[in-house]
């Protein structure tokens, strides 16, 4: 009992001390001494964790991009010898500079996995939810700094495991990023389904842990730690997007975990959840009664919300960047929130559109066609609202703004082809062709990368207290935008000509011989796009150390992160937390001198808070 009391009072004393510290800290920021390890490695500070996520994601993105260039070379000039391929892949996977077919499969698989999970889920949500949630809601940090730290380190483990899997003898997982069994379950089906697939599953398990720790933290922080006056209806749309994204992740990633767990059982312990009636390698397997369709259902129950987990944060960042730089309130704030919620809800009841021709009951195909096409409505609302936000604006073309506008363009262009694919009857003939590849790369790949780049350019002053170089940013943007369309627009036509995805070469079919020039065009644009990213990488790392110092509120923005001092201090605000009096979008309000009114400025007498009804 006494010991209990003691522990209790100690805890109490600790929390008092913590409080005192938080108040104390602002008198002298340098008082807080930290070791290298607690500051840069096992940091619990949301800003440092955000930077850790970003830099890890940038490295992983470079890996995935180099992979894509290698398989694009093979697709454009099959069988041609490239010193580059030999240099990167070595004599085993790229003998004489010609890519090995198994290595090709591994490259497309790991390219997809890294881009979908490490870059556009971990990288995008991890970087910007961490950076902006405490900043924009007016909190000192995340609800649990410790969980947040764990979230990053599990992400790091996951990325490291995936990278290590590239270097093993039999090659990395190579059954496609969707890893459908039995292909991914049986080593006899392909070499990559051995240790490579095991490491893939280990990596994904780490990733799911990371995503859940992060997601729970984001939700709790947004719900409980908003500063005084920050009602849900005053939140910037970034936070709404991160909030719904985190909920989607928390509800769907556990399903992926069970999906992966059953696959681990089938692979290692002889169960038959997904396996039945298989004869392979001269042997009839004993497993019986399972169904690969079950795997597909479980996988896509995560897999479809996952694409919204990727695109929603990008749209959230875009909403903020477009509004700030158009110097206008975001048009239809409440409609934007409703759209995010509608997209979030619908994303859970559309997964079957990945499975129209898998042998799923055709009646289900009708249901999923209906629900899937409904998603186009909130998506259309968002696109039109962005366009209207630009109308009569006073647009400041920062590199971030350029990427945000480009996102709206690719979101439209990629979105409309979704209408074709969602239609079960039309999907029959274009399922698993390059039409699908073109569609999802534009609508979620390119769009989400553009959103991420918009975020990096725009919030670079909050990430590293400096600006990225503007002119290099412009050059990077225009080259990237042109090559993105150059790569993915022609790709639709390959799909309409019936070219299946994941073919090592199309030359085995006379049917596809006259399409080779399209593949060459795509690869040329892909190389141009990759070269443009070198400009970005240079600018990024150069600016971290040598970029020009930013002022406190360089864009004249309203949200709370720009009220923090230009130094990375614990607790974000040296004094008391800011108080919020208005929504985030009072730009160019009539009768005001300045073209922005920060959220901390009290409403005048009789002034109405924005976003409501007039």
């Amino acid at each position: 009992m006494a010991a209990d009391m003691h522990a209790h009072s100690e805890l109490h004393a600790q929390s008092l001390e913590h409080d005192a510290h938080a108040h104390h800290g602002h008198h002298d920021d340098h008082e807080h001494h930290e070791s290298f390890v607690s500051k840069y490695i096992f940091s619990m500070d949301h800003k440092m964790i955000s930077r850790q996520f970003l830099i890890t994601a940038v490295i992983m993105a470079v890996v995935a991009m180099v992979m894509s260039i290698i398989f694009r070379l093979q697709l454009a000039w099959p069988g041609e010898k490239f010193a580059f391929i030999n240099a990167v892949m070595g004599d085993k996977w790229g003998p004489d500079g010609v890519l090995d077919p198994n290595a090709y499969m591994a490259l497309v698989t790991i390219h997809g996995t890294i881009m979908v999970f490490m870059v556009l889920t971990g990288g995008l949500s991890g970087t910007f939810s961490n950076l902006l949630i405490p900043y924009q809601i007016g909190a000192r940090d995340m609800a649990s700094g410790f969980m947040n730290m764990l979230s990053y380190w599990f992400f790091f483990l996951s990325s490291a495991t995936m990278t290590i899997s590239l270097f093993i003898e039999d090659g990395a997982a190579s059954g496609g990023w969707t890893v459908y069994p039995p292909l991914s379950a049986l080593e006899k089906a392909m070499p990559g389904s051995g240790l490579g697939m095991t490491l893939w599953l280990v990596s994904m398990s780490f990733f799911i842990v990371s995503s859940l720790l992060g997601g729970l933290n984001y939700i709790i922080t947004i719900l409980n730690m908003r500063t005084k006056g920050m009602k849900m209806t005053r939140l910037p749309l970034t936070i709404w997007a991160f909030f719904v994204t985190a909920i989607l992740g928390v509800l769907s990633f556990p399903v992926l975990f069970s999906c992966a767990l059953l696959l681990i059982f089938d692979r290692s312990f002889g169960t038959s959840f997904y396996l039945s009636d298989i004869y392979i390698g001269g042997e009839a397997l004993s497993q019986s009664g399972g169904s690969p369709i079950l795997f597909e259902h479980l996988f896509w129950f995560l897999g479809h919300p996952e694409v919204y987990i990727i695109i929603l944060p990008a749209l959230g960042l875009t909403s903020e960047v477009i509004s700030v730089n158009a110097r206008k309130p975001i048009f239809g704030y409440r409609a934007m929130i409703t759209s995010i919620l509608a997209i979030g809800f619908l994303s859970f009841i559309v997964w079957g559109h990945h499975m129209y021709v898998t042998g799923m009951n055709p009646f289900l195909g009708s249901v999923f066609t209906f629900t899937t096409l409904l998603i186009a409505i909130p998506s259309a609302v968002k696109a039109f609202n962005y366009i209207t936000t630009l109308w009569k604006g006073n647009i400041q073309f920062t590199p971030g703004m350029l990427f945000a506008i480009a996102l709206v363009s690719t979101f439209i262009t990629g979105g409309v082809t979704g209408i074709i694919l969602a239609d079960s009857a039309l999907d029959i003939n274009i399922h698993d062709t390059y039409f699908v590849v073109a569609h999802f790369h534009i609508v979620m790949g390119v769009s989400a990368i553009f959103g991420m780049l918009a975020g990096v350019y725009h919030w670079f002053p909050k990430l590293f207290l400096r600006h990225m170089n503007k002119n290099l940013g412009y050059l990077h943007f225009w080259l990237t935008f042109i090559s993105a369309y150059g790569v993915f627009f022609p790709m639709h036509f390959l799909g309409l000509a019936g070219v299946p995805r994941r073919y090592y070469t199309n030359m085995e079919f006379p049917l596809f011989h006259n399409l080779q020039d399209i593949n060459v065009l795509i690869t040329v644009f892909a190389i141009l796009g990759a070269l443009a990213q070198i400009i970005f990488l240079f600018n990024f790392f150069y600016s971290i150390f040598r970029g020009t110092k930013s002022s406190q509120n360089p864009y004249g923005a309203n949200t709370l992160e720009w009220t923090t001092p230009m130094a990375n201090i614990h607790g974000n605000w040296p004094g008391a937390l800011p108080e919020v009096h208005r929504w985030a979008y009072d730009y160019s309000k009539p009768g005001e001198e300045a073209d922005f009114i920060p959220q901390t400025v009290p409403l005048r007498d009789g002034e109405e808070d924005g976003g409501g009804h007039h």
Partner: protein
Amino acid sequence: MKFVIYFILILAAAAIWQLVRVVELSAKLKGVDPNKVTDKDNKLNSRLMFLFMIFLWIFSLWCLFNYKDRLLPVSASEHGIDIDWLLNFNMIIIWIVFLVTNSLLFIMAWKYYGRSDRKAAYFAHNNKLEMLWTGVPAIVLFVIIFMGIRLWNRTLEPADSKVRIVEVYAKQFSFTARYSGDDNKLGKANYRLIMDANVLGLDSSDVAGHDDVIISDTLFIPVNEEVNFRFRSQDVIHSAYFPHFRAQMNMVPGMETFFHFKPVVTTEEMRKITGNPEFDYVLLCNKICGAAHYNMQIKIVVGTKEQYEAFMNRHTEFLPAEKTAQVK
């Protein structure tokens, strides 16, 4: 040689580095933030936005007109004609939406570039506009949904039992066809019976299977007759993709899947249509299935009824009647 290239690359990077430094430092000396966006930047980028719109129009339409003749030829199946019609209908809608909304976006970006002497309009909300762009897409989508589901149900409704059944069997990396014979019944099969010669694992005790005909180099189907394909797989998931017939169904180990259609254009006729005397229909695998996925195929021939019968006569049944009699 390699070192020269590396050396040049490093020099180039250093040159850019120094150039960036010089520009930033000279701006600093003048007391301006070199990375602050100026009116000049705004004007330049807004014009580039306009030019990009023109580029997008030209590039997308160039793709369309340059590539459209290389897409799949007219549908060789009956339901495929309807699919093509619906695809074109939807394509017209999405091309319009794609061009109009993208143009709107780029025109806004071009027209409303920032000028220091201007202020933006305060326009936060408008119910009528928002109803308009919720309502119009909703109506268009309901038409698309209705037509799509109707065609889907018509295409996928179960085939009549009199329709000829043909099995397509997949394994890494080949297809095998099995015809059901005069009784139109496929004999039972079991994966545990698979042995050297018995690739499909047929059960010889099932009489229904005795007249089955197994053919592994060609899939021959008669024109103008409905065929009900049954799909099975031996090892991993494959997908039977008939691009010319607008048909596709996955082949899943442990279960049977079906797709039926009626071919309406013979190989000979399609050779004339495409102007390619060597044209052949093909069935290809469209689900990642291993290293040689890119070369898993079987030739399809669509012929007249007479050609079909002649073809079948050249092949023997699984257990011909005379052989069965001998066994007895």
